[in-house]
């Protein structure tokens, strides 16, 4: 199980798959989702298998999510912001026509 070391209250609220998640200042989208015990962040474009946080430092691109409609955002490199809408990235990118 996941737990938090400090007693800092979550002050930021954002949506993950439409559900509210609270986060603390300094959190990235990935660390806030980790704190909420969410492991599955995207599906592989090759096999569709679930993927989650791997390196937490912007190298592996396994934590790609869709944020406010923009795909391929690195959850571990993106600071959380109030009111953003984060979605699991499903499969390949579809180009809007």
């Amino acid at each position, binding site marked *: 199980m*996941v737990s938090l*070391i400090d007693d800092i209250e979550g002050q930021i609220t954002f949506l993950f798959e439409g559900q509210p998640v609270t986060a603390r200042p300094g959190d990235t989208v990935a660390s806030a989702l980790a704190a909420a015990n969410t492991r*599955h962040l995207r599906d592989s*474009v090759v096999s569709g298998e679930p993927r989650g946080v*791997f390196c*937490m430092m912007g190298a592996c691109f396994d934590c790609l999510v869709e944020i406010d409609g923009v795909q391929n955002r690195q959850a571990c490199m993106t600071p959380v912001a109030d009111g953003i809408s984060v979605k699991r990235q499903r499969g390949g990118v579809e180009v809007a026509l």
Partner: protein
Amino acid sequence: MSERSDIVIIGAGPAGMACAIEAAGKGLSAVVLDENPAPGGQIYRSVESVGQKRLDILGPDYAKGKALVSAFRETAGIDYRPCSTVWNIGSDRRVEFSQGGRSFGILAGSVVVATGALERPSPVPGWTLPGVTTVGALQILLKGSGVVYDDAVLVGAGPLLWLLAAQLVDAKTPPKAIVETTPPRHVLGLLPQLFGSLAAPGYLRKGLSMMRKVRRAGIPHHSGATNIRIEGDSQATAVRFESRGRSHHIASSTIALHQGVVPNQQITRLLQCDHFWDDSQKCFRPLLDERRQTSIQRVFVAGDGAGIEGAASAEMQGRLVGLLIAAEAGHVENERIDSLQSQLKREASVRPFLEKLYAPSSEVLSPADETIVCRCEEVSAGAIRKAVDDGAPGPNQVKSFLRTGMGPCQGRVCGLAVASVISQRTGKPPEDVDYYRIRPPLKPLQLSELAAYDGASPDKAVG
């Protein structure tokens, strides 16, 4: 027109910060580009903002970073640009980067690459499952957000494994087990290297005290682990392995892998700097002259991006490069330069011992055929071996055959593992097998951003 700066430093870890402090202190203009929102790199990540509780857990070597970060913040003349992702460097040393959804270019008198290290790939069956991370990732969660898991199993080899285990003990969420690939009592065979490392006794003392803390906490420890595999359908549920002739199965949803760290070669490869294979560190390193300049004029490397020496050395190397560049502009400080050179030698004396003790396991250097090596494109070791048998001599040909290294991470994670599989299959040394050719953009950027970027490119200036 593009901006100009005497030095553009890429990375705000210990090396990048120290380099900027020295160069700006001598009146040179120094731009520091860093992907993260705050200075510190991974080693001193969040050191400005963590509370006392986290500082106590992370220990004095981490807290030391506070002074360096304050000096960095307070030195006049450092133009620090956080949240900036470098995506190209031209042959004219135009550093192109993305910040806040816009791209910019800066012409650099000198470029200092201070992009540090990455964890060595640990391809084992099941390593792509959610719940499996690097050991570094768990430490970043702890440093950056105070997030800890109470069922973590740490698997692999290297000092970071023990450091994180000791920190988790202090955080009152001790790991469920440590599974070391290092053979038991291996240390006895390393007495010559151990003797050589006595010039830097601090590391040995720290290592022993971490191990003592972990042992006293009663954490199960397995050594010489082989046949490691992670189980689970949609998420990790257990790790299975053999140790000392027995099979083990540990249930856990949090499995962290580690096989040491290796230089992040992305920028020095992009610039086509010469690299060599270091068989002791089992990695490629950019070839540097005595001034830490690469084979490309006015491109320098400071810190672990040029070979793994640790945070203290990274800071010294950063200072050295800053002073050397300032010396060219007439601010000569030979005494400090000489003293840094000799301190660096002392610091490096512990490396041969650590490199022998924590050599990467043969299983990750030569994974079983069914194991995925390239995570982005899900290419197995067996498929790579088959491509080699079909005539692919190196990583770039395997890339054309199989798309290894062509996913979003662009080979950052799999590069060394792919080179190692090819080297073993062909019988050629890694240096001859070579490495991926790295092309811009170093990280994906939106087409709209690229289209809007005018960077005052030479073509445009002429047209």
